[in-house]
Structure formats: C-alpha cells, structure tokens
C-alpha cells in the first residue's frame, strides 16, 4: 500500500472516522485559483482527487465537463496538472493524499512510463483512469508501473459489475477501491446506500482493502450515512459547482479557495463516526 494512504488510514482509524475525499478539476477555473483551492482543502480532506481534463470524456456529468472546459481554456494539460500537484504538495504540511482522475487517451499520448514517472516526481499517491479496461494491455502497463512505484491504482466498481469483474479489479487495487453508488453519471442521482451495502459486503468477503464510495454524495447527511459503510467518502459535483459559483461571482485565488473550503469544511464534518 502507498505510504501516504497507509498514514491516512491509520490516522482515520485512530480518530474513529472515515476519510473525506474532495474532487476538483485541476486548474478550474485557473492555475492559481486551483492551487489555492487545493492548498486550502488539504487542511480538511484526507484525499484530494484532481481531475485531468479530457475534452471528450465519456463518463463525466455535464457539471464536470464544464469544469473541464474551464480548465482547458485556462491551459490545463497533463504536465500542468503534475506541476500543480507538485507545487501544492510542496506548500502543505498535512499528509493529504493526491489522486489523479483522468482518461486513458491523455496518458497514452503522454506516454504511460513517463506519466508514472511524473506521478512519482510530483507526489501523486494514486491514479484513477476511468476508461482503462482491466483486460487491456495499457491497463496492465499502468498497473505494473504504478505498483513498482508504490502508487495506488484505484479502480472503479459499479453496482452493475459482476463478481468476475470485481475480482479482476480488486487484484489491481493496492490502496483502496472506489465504489460507485449507482449506475449513472456523477451528480445525476442521490447516493444509493442499498447498492453500497451490497457491494461493500461482497468486497469485504474477499478482501480487506479500504473502500471508497462516491457518486451522489452531496449533503452532510450523505457523508454521515456513507461514513458508516465506507472508509473513504468522495464528494465531487457539488464542490465543482461551488467553484463555478464562486468564480462566476468574481472570486479567484485565496478568496475563491475560502469560498469553496467553507462548503467543504461543513461536509467533511460528516466523517466522524
């Protein structure tokens, strides 16, 4: 298991809580604001999931897609996201873990080896590659490369996936696995606790890997409920919406960061058991 995650999980256990994961699109709405947001959020979140914008993603909601648009307009590129994470990491003192979330095409174009090397260099602790098929040669390369470099490969598992698929995915996850609470896109429905219960039960039977849950986690109540079932609680769309709102109201940099963290602080409170 990746070192940062080890620390995080240990601390959370000690504090009898789950870990709060905040998703933001890297460089949304711009490099500097995004940096301030990440720095600020690192104070309240165990994990920061940073989206690498792809203009033709097949799985993001319109909320995330417009964040991607904003980021690309302000110059988001893979190497810029690495730079962003590196700079943020160098300025924070907490043990916050950083996870990149992106699509395979950009990694492929960047070069899988180079991507992994740059993850390492910039302090990325885990990677989500939404459309990396377990059985593809690329997935194998990424898995091997990340493992060698002690970076977590975080796989998504949906309630509609069959047990064979889940088994396959678990094999490649070293630090934690990401359960999607419903079959749908982020932000489109409410978190489905029934699905989560079923899936966590199933996974815990075959593995003691920590489990993260996302999709539909919007309110403090949601966080509290999911916390009871999972080790990590992921909140994305609503944070992204908050960034958009602040930015549309003319906020940027530190101001925007505070506007966002205000909202996140409240949510993150839900992780206490």
């Amino acid at each position, binding site marked *: 298991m990746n070192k940062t995650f080890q620390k995080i999980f240990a601390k959370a256990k000690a504090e009898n809580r789950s870990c709060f994961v905040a998703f933001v699109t890297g460089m949304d709405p711009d490099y500097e604001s995004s940096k301030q947001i990440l720095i600020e959020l690192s104070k309240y979140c165990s994990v920061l999931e940073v989206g690498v914008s792809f203009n033709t993603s097949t799985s993001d909601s*319109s909320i995330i897609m417009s964040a991607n*648009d904003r980021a690309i307009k302000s110059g988001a590129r893979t190497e810029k996201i690495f730079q962003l994470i590196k700079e943020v990491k160098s300025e924070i003192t907490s043990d916050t873990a950083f996870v990149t979330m992106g699509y395979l*095409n950009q990694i492929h174009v960047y070069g899988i080896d180079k991507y992994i090397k740059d993850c390492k260099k910039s302090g990325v602790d885990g990677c989500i590659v939404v459309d990396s098929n377990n059985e593809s040669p690329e997935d194998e390369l990424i898995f091997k490369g990340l493992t060698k470099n002690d970076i977590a490969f975080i796989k998504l598992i949906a309630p*509609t996936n069959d047990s064979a*698929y889940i088994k396959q995915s678990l094999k490649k996850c070293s630090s934690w696995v990401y359960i999607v609470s419903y079959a749908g896109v982020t932000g489109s429905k409410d978190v489905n606790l029934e699905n989560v219960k079923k899936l966590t039960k199933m996974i815990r039977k075959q593995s003691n890997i920590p489990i993260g849950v996302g999709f539909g986690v919007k309110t403090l109540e949601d966080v509290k409920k999911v916390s009871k079932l999972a080790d990590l609680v992921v909140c994305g769309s609503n944070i992204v919406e908050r960034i958009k709102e602040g930015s549309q109201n003319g906020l940027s940099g530190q101001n925007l960061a505070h506007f966002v963290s205000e909202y996140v602080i409240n949510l993150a409170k839900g992780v206490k058991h």
Partner: protein
Amino acid sequence: MKIPPFKEINPPDQLGYWTNKKTGEKYGGQYISPLLIPNLKKVEEGFKKAMKNKKFLAGLEEQLINHIGIVTPLLRSKELEDIVGGEKKIGKIFLKRTDLHHDSSHKPVSAFSSVYFAKHILKAKKIITETGASMNARAVASACAKLGLECEVHIGAVDSEKVSLNKDITELYGAKIIECHDSTKTLLPAMAAALRSWQNDPTAMYVVGSVCGPHPYPLMVRTFASIVGRITKIQMKNLTGRLPSTVFAVCGGGSNLNMISYPYYREKSVSIFGIESAGKGISSGKHAATLTSNAPIGILLGARSNVLMNDDGQIDESATEASGLDFSGTGPEICYMHSIGRIKFRATTDKEAQETFLMMCRRTGILPAIEACYVIHAALKEIKKRKNPKENHLIHLCGSGESNVTRMLKYKRENE
C-alpha cells in the same frame, strides 16, 4: 436474389482488437468506464447469440430487403466513364445505389439491424443514440418507430440549431431529441452524452452511428452492414462475370466503406480505396482526413484508433463541408486495414466535392449526398490514372443529397 450468409474473415480477438502483426499495434478494444462494462457485455453476448440465431437472421434479412430496400441497383454509369475518357480507355464504372435506400443513405442498414437486435435479442424497450448531421438519428428513429421502441437522440446544441431536414424527420419519427450543451456542443460531446445516458439506463440499448465505439460495436455494425457488400459482390459478378478491380467508398467513421469492401478483404486482385474529407486542404489543419493525414493512434470513444488530437491528447475538432464526415476518428477495423495497407486512403477537398456535386446533378441526373461526392471525385481521378480498359470499377454512392440542397444551391448560384 439469394444472399450468401455472413462469413467472418477478419475477426478481432476476444477483447475486440485487430492487431497489426508487423507493428504489434492494436486497434479496437473496450476502453470505457466500468459502469458501461455490463451494458457492453450484454450486447456482446447478445450479438454472439444473434449471429447463431437463424430465425433472427432470417427475420432481419427479410426486413432489410423489404423495408430498407437493400437490394438496390448497381448502375453502370456511362456518363462517368465518358467524363474520364470513355469505356475504351478506363473500363467500366458501376455505382452502388444505396442512395435509394429507405431514408436515403447506407445508415439505415446498421441502424435498423441494431434496433431489430435490441428488440428481439436484448428485449430492450428504449434506444439511445447520438447524431451530428442527423442522418444516423433519422435512421435509428425510423427503426424505433417501426419496431415500437422508445428513441432518445443526443445532439450537440450547435448542430441542433442548424436547419436540418434529417433532424426534422427524426422528430416526425417520434424520437425524443436531447440537446447537449457540453464542450463544443457538437457530435463528440453528444456521443459522450449518449453513453452517459446509457450509463443511467442499462435497460436501454445504445446504437452507434458508424463502425466506432467500444467493442463489440465496430464488429457488430460492420457485420450487420456487410450484407450490402455481399449483395453487391453478387451483382457485380452477374453483370461482369468477375470481381471488380477497384472498390471506392468515402470514409467518415467508416461504416459505408466497411459495408461495401468487407467481402473483398481477402480478394487480392481487388484494390480498395477509402476516401476522406481533406476539408480546406490537409495542410490547413481544417479537415477530417484522419488516416490520409497520418493522425496518431489514440483512444477515442472506447476504442484504440487513429485520432485527430493535439499533443496533450485533447481531441481536435474535424472540419468539413460534409456533416456526415465531420468526425475526429475512424473505426478501428478501418484503421487496422489502413495500417496493413489493405485499404488505401485518399482525400478530397470540400471544393472538389462541391464541384463534383454539381457535376453529378447536371451530368448524371443523380442528386448525391455531399459525402458521396468526396469518393466520386477521388475515384474518377484514380480511374483516370489507372487508364485500364479491362477494369471494372465499383463506387459506393452511399446517400442521396436532399439535405444538402439548400447549401449546394447557394454554392451553385455564388460560383456560376
């Protein structure tokens, strides 16, 4: 006409890859969020079952023949022969008239097949698809109307605002049209929106507009569509006693090229040409010529294939007068065929295609889809160069131009 059954002569592997043995490069695959994996598995398994289900295949064939009208003529075009020097110099030219299909293009063949498959094999009640120029949407909506399935069409808001005969017909067929306001508001985000919608509703089936998308779509679409190629091969034999020397088809996503050329993959004597849109010229960067411009390999909409993109992997928008060719990728099997040199690629500029459109109207009395004009121009050029009176040439006239009339008449009036 007895149509010979489908024979698999270019299978992808289990995971949906066609692999170039020389370079090791893979094309196809299934790169998609885990949320869609079960949906795809269902389609994959259903497709395997379907291809062994004689009743399904016979029923589908009957409907394709009698509803879509796939037994269209193969027209010997003396007019085109004369334009490039006459039969005595260049041989004979045959036009496969898929412009005479129901809904006026080749699209309804795979669209109807897919919806028929969704209904009878998957027992789906709803179809989700996307569209740019609405040719695919029209075909899918028609099939859904006939077969009694709900139809949901995703279209980019920018495309939707354009006056479009096909979009209006899609609405008349009763489809629910959903505007997509993401990103460029054009075809690619609409495709993403369709896939997301499928993610939300796994009981529906997604239908793709070409031989693109994650496995098994490229395989399934070309397998269904190849029936037209099989028919054409027989027609060619009946008319000339032998195989054609050349086969020409335009290439957007690649479905009409795949459809017509598949039966000749193993016939070494047949040269196959795929024609792309060079837009305003390949060097201008404003084009849709993925293969002719040697675009790199990427992962687009679930499959490894050649893709127009920038050095960060962001997909570039294609640019062409022909909305049916306005696509930044190409189907994986086609990319594979390109990589092994079996299909040769050429590109025609918008201007050349527009002039060909006017020529076709005035010299042959045929109103071609603007898409088809790209292939006709390139075919005539190639045929003239070959200058072989013993050859028979097959050109795929893949659609009719009703939806191009307004723009083309404007072009004619401005340029004559």
